[in-house]
């Protein structure tokens, strides 16, 4: 009986997360219909994430083989959804526990420290929990100490990163009502400082005409499909028709095959996002409800697009300059002996756009351009360095995208190595 509870019930991450949702729903005194549907949807969300991973990993594997054959170097596509989904089979339980206890530490820290933030970007909480589960495990921790250390670090990330950005968020939004809770903070912080040194905040991006036609890339599915198609086709051309058709595509045309694989990757991301959406739908309101009861007068820390409407031009400029830096870095990385980090439109659009908004508020046009460029370099080099430290733990071909995941991961692994754990 104990075996059943410990291994099969609590050891199955989908059920574990479902239990947390159930407790959350009961605490909110929801009616029985809401409790049943909310719990079932949460479990289903977790299962959908796994299904999306299965779709995506096949195409990622093919991309890796083609890239390796073409250039004799590893090509990596940083994608949070992909790596988190891939890691769930092995680290799912640890991730779920760190996520939930991390939220409790967030509430505790908001209560006892001056950092009164409640981090409501649930998918980033999940991704950071996963990064901590993986890096601390690789670093040599296991069992209860792993969960405890992971949860404390997650709780710290959930208040410290919003606190780091708040002075700039106040300027951007003209209010102190809410914060930015998004784990690309280091990129935005650097961007704001680059803007401060090199820019002039009087010359704001919002006084110039910027074509808004690139707005369609805000749609994640379109952006992933487009990038992956471009990269798949280019890599297939370099790998050569003969190689692709004899070893990978079973004889079907190499370009058609590459196009379908690219769209398969995007479909995998779409499925994972749908799963994540269902998974966090019950957990975030419960977390917010509990936090509001226990800690009054906190600021909600919210996903980064919350700042986009304040400077729509800076969003487009930031994306372009971040992506441009990503393309440059792609050629620089192998020279330094690092893996090639394929710049994704999605990470560059979201974090580059935000870096543009932060750079503009301190340094106007020049701040938005240079700051976003700095962000683009950060989200290219940091994942490459993280990859070196993490080694091959079974998710080759993808890694965490946004800056804070990489920085926290690199810090943890370096400290664990220094202390002699790893």
């Amino acid at each position, binding site marked *: 009986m104990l075996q059943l509870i410990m291994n099969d019930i609590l050891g199955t991450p989908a059920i574990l997360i479902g239990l947390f949702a159930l407790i959350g729903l009961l605490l909110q005194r929801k009616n029985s219909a809401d409790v049943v549907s909310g719990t079932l949807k949460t479990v289903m969300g977790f299962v959908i994430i796994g299904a999306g991973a299965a779709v995506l990993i096949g195409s990622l594997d093919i991309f890796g083989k083609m890239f390796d054959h073409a250039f004799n170097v590893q090509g990596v596509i940083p994608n949070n959804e992909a790596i988190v989904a891939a890691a769930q089979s092995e680290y799912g339980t640890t991730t779920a526990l760190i996520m939930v206890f991390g939220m409790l530490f967030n509430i505790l820290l908001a209560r006892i420290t001056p950092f009164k933030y409640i981090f409501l970007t*649930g998918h980033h909480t999940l991704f950071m929990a996963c990064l901590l589960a993986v890096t601390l495990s690789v670093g040599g921790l296991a069992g209860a100490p792993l969960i405890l250390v992971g949860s404390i670090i997650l709780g710290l990330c959930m208040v410290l990163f919003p606190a780091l950005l708040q002075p700039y968020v106040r300027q951007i939004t003209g209010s102190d009502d809410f914060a930015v809770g998004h784990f690309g903070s280091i990129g935005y912080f650097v961007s704001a400082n680059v803007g401060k040194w090199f820019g002039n905040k009087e010359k704001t991006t919002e006084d110039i005409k910027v074509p808004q036609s690139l707005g369609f890339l805000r*749609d994640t599915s379109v952006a992933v499909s487009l990038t992956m198609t471009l990269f798949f086709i280019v890599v297939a051309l370099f790998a050569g028709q003969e190689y692709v058709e004899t070893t990978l595509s079973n004889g079907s045309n190499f370009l058609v095959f590459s196009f379908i694989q690219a769209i398969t990757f995007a479909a995998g991301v779409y499925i994972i996002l749908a799963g994540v959406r269902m998974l966090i739908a019950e957990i975030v309101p419960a977390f917010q409800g509990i936090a509001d009861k226990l800690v009054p007068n906190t600021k909600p820390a919210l996903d980064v697009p919350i700042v986009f409407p304040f400077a729509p031009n800076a969003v487009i400029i930031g994306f372009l300059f971040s992506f441009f830096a990503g393309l440059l870095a792609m050629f620089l990385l192998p020279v330094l002996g690092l893996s090639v980090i394929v710049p994704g439109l999605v990470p560059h659009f979201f974090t580059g756009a935000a870096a543009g908004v932060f750079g503009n508020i301190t340094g106007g046009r020049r701040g938005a351009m240079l700051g976003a460029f700095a962000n683009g370099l950060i989200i290219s080099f940091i994942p490459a360095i993280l990859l070196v430290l993490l080694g091959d733990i079974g998710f080759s071909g993808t890694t965490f995208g946004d800056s804070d995941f990489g920085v926290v991961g690199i810090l943890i692994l370096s400290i664990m190595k220094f202390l002699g754990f790893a």
Partner: protein
Amino acid sequence: MKIMVVCGNGLGSSFIMELNVKKALKELGKTAEVGHTDLTSAKSEQADIFIGAADIMSQLDDGNRTIVNLENMMSIPEIKSKLEPHLV
């Protein structure tokens, strides 16, 4: 009455907006079914009102949808004033 909240990823900001729309409805004393999703899915969704940040909603505007643009996603007064004309 169904209201669909939209953002690029269908995760973070649309979710927060959904919670805010529900608060706004409560203050207005109205009831509606509220959900959130990403742009791609929204294009094939049926809803009476689509609501989201001003910088992406133009992509949903095909002339047949009721679109509500928000400048400040966190402003309950703004949500209330923009939603109210469309509510039955």
